[in-house]
């Protein structure tokens, strides 16, 4: 899974236009970053990296890059 793969998935998960979400995008600016987006993000990372990032960790993430860091640290 590349950064680009994740960004494509993540834009769709939060209901944003493709290409409008970047690694430094702050999560609190995304209206669609809600509990349903948490589920799809956990599923995507578990499926693609074998890491089930917990919701407590997701709450701590400030940017999209933070989510990727958390997931990769768990590998």
């Amino acid at each position, binding site marked *: 899974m590349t950064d680009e793969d994740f960004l494509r998935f993540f834009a769709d998960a939060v209901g944003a236009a493709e290409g409008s979400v970047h690694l430094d995008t702050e999560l609190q600016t995304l209206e669609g970053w*809600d*509990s*349903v987006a*948490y*589920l*799809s993000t*956990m*599923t995507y990372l*578990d*499926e693609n990296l074998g890491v*089930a*990032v*917990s*919701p*407590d960790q*997701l709450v701590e993430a400030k940017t999209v890059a933070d989510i990727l860091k958390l997931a990769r640290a768990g590998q």
Partner: protein
Amino acid sequence: MQHSSILAVECVLGSETLSFETLEERFGVENMRKVFSGSGIRNRRVAPAGVCGSDLAFEAAENLFAKYDVDRSSIDFLIHCTQTPDYLLPTTACILQDRLHLRKDCGAFDLNLGCSQYVYAMTVASSLIASGVATKVLVLTGDTMSQTVHPMDRAVVPILGDAGSATIVGPVAEGEGFLGFELGTDGSGYKYLINPASGFRVPRTAETAIAVADKEGNVRSQENFFMNGAAVFHFAITTVPKTVHKVLAKVQLSMDQVDLFLFHQANRYMLDYLVKKLQIPPEKTHFYVEETGNTSGTTMPGVLSDAIRLGKVKPGAVVLMIVFGVGLSWAATVVRWPEKTLPLKAQA
């Protein structure tokens, strides 16, 4: 040691349907689209006000006695599973013993667990039979979780349904029935599924009855059921696959040797992912949640009775059942379906 198995199971759903369209009107089309994408539950069956979980359990038991050739006087133990009892005390099982006209020398108690209750009850029933304490155990489940939620909490209203069930557990030959169990608990997650002001830790007051909206607009008071869906999902996708492998190792069977995998019917999105993660062929599982909702501890007897009805459980079949939820608590068992289950009553 006397071996035992499920010999008959009946399930009753809440008599009313809370439809997708009704909830679209309540929560809005876009919100329900999102909820549906994360749950896969379209409609749910709920009990009307005034109907308790024990009423559904009672109805399921009477249906079972009417359908199968079994004498209720042969029941010498009753286990009633619920988290929505008639009263905090007395134990609802005692009331059900009388309502069902069971023997007075019949043991009876409630088992207070939620989604994991059915397999836990099977563990207890099989142990009672193995130890000679009982010979035929009636296991009832019945919950009306829809009556614990705030009607404007879209995190839980679109998920939950109400149901009850009745199962007879009795003796079978060695090599049949329950082959083994795997149980687990993680109480550190107790706040993920909780009805906070429902007992003595947080007594009900005027303050606990005040409903407030969370940041996603879900309305509830401390007297309502709360679910942290993301935390429960994380728990499920990490715990369930490990537990499936552990119970199979315990009974010395491989994934390929299981004919049917039955999961607690929490929500379809979660189940689809678990099936994919465990690489289970679609024909080796069964779903029963889209039109019923998550009926708490009754999802397992519900999905089992539906699979039996559809001919998916044949004598000799190896069935793995796994349940998980509030507690946090989980349980799995593997059953080799017996050659002889309870016969149907002869037609009059």
